[in-house]
């Protein structure tokens, strides 16, 4: 049986603590221990980006991140973009551009796009395309997602 370890970290701006098994991934911790379903399990091996979260300002696949490694980190999930704030301009751009169909990839796309956006910097289509290359969408064919991110770039964050 795996060891249990106490971790404490910042989750969407709030300090949280939990006891978790060392064998669990960050994705399992977020999904199960914190009831945050935004980061999604779709492949479990870093090949689709549906579980993308931001850790210390850097995007990563929650399915590949050890749960214990959350300890001491500053973690942002898609829920944090909206709760307490209303729709983020990036989220609005996704809605208005038609970037969402089944939506299963959407939270991961939004978080990876959030990582790409730098305040005041307009992103080129090519920068966005390369930036989203680790996020798979089976529905949209990507164009409307790219449109949304380009549209949202250049805004103050």
């Amino acid at each position, binding site marked *: 049986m795996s060891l249990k370890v106490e971790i404490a970290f910042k989750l969407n701006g709030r300090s949280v603590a939990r006891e978790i098994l*060392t064998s669990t*991934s960050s994705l399992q911790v977020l999904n199960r221990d914190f009831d945050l379903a935004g980061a999604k399990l779709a492949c479990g091996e*870093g090949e689709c980006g549906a579980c993308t979260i931001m850790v210390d300002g850097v995007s990563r*696949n929650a399915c*590949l991140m*050890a749960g214990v490694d959350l300890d001491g980190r500053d973690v942002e999930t898609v829920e944090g973009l909206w709760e307490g704030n209303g729709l983020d301009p990036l989220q609005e751009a996704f809605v208005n551009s038609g970037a969402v169909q089944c939506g299963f990839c959407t939270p991961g796309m939004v978080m990876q796009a959030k990582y790409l956006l730098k305040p005041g910097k307009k992103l080129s289509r090519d920068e966005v395309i390369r930036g989203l290359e680790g996020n798979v969408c089976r529905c949209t064919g990507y164009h409307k997602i790219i449109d949304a991110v380009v549209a949202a770039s250049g805004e103050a964050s």
Partner: protein
Amino acid sequence: MTLPQNQSPAEFEYYVNATSIEEACRALGDGVGTILAGGSDLWVQKDEGVKIFGPRLINISRVDELAEISIGNDHVRLGARVTMTDILNHGELGNIAPGLLEAANRFASPQIRNVATVGGNFANASPAADSVIPLICLDAEIELARLDGNAVAIRSIPSADFFTGPGKTVRTDDELITAISFKPRDGKSLARFFKSGPRPALEISIVSLGIAADILDGKLSNVRIALGAVAPIPFRARKTEALIEGQKIDDKLIHAALECLVSEISPIGDVRGSKWYRQHLARTYLQEALTDVA
């Protein structure tokens, strides 16, 4: 991934959150440690039940001294925890090692590049590891640390001698990879990296090829050619290197070099590509590199 129905996932009975090399080495001392850095390979393999993992999980992602890039006049040192994104964003490093820059650029995905470390790419010892290939071409050395009594002892291994089999290296169970270092080439030099796949990202190389050499008067010297995914370990094409060394690059030499390379490698066929295709790609990449020089 689900497990094959008869295998168990790795379980960890101890956890160490190391903050220094010494602390990490101490935790590794009895040889039952599993090192966690970026986790991008580990967390998949852990659940596949294929590899055996030590029950002590040692997290080195907070060992800051492992994250440094230092560039001296004749020496470049990448801490083991330097990520692919660090390499891409560094600027100066990319100018010194353009092959490494290109490998980092073609590596997995942005999210994985943000966490995957150069040390981890060596430690995991995949025959298809991308960042390893250009570093072998730079004659990089791997620094390994272990606790000797109460002091940390370091040894260096040439990158080309580091690998012993798929997933296997000369690293002993009590050792930690601390850095990859190399001497930059001066003067006019060639440094290329090629990788298969129409997708810029998320491709496990069917074949990758790196080449480095000094260029003088249309001749190449100190030639290094390394290939990924054509052998159980990253492969140095020494016969082809010798054939090119010091010779004028012309059509005849290129032709001979391609023949030599194909005879020198003996890749397997698998779901990603047949033996023929792997040979064909290797030939194609070398041809492109040499033709561009000529």
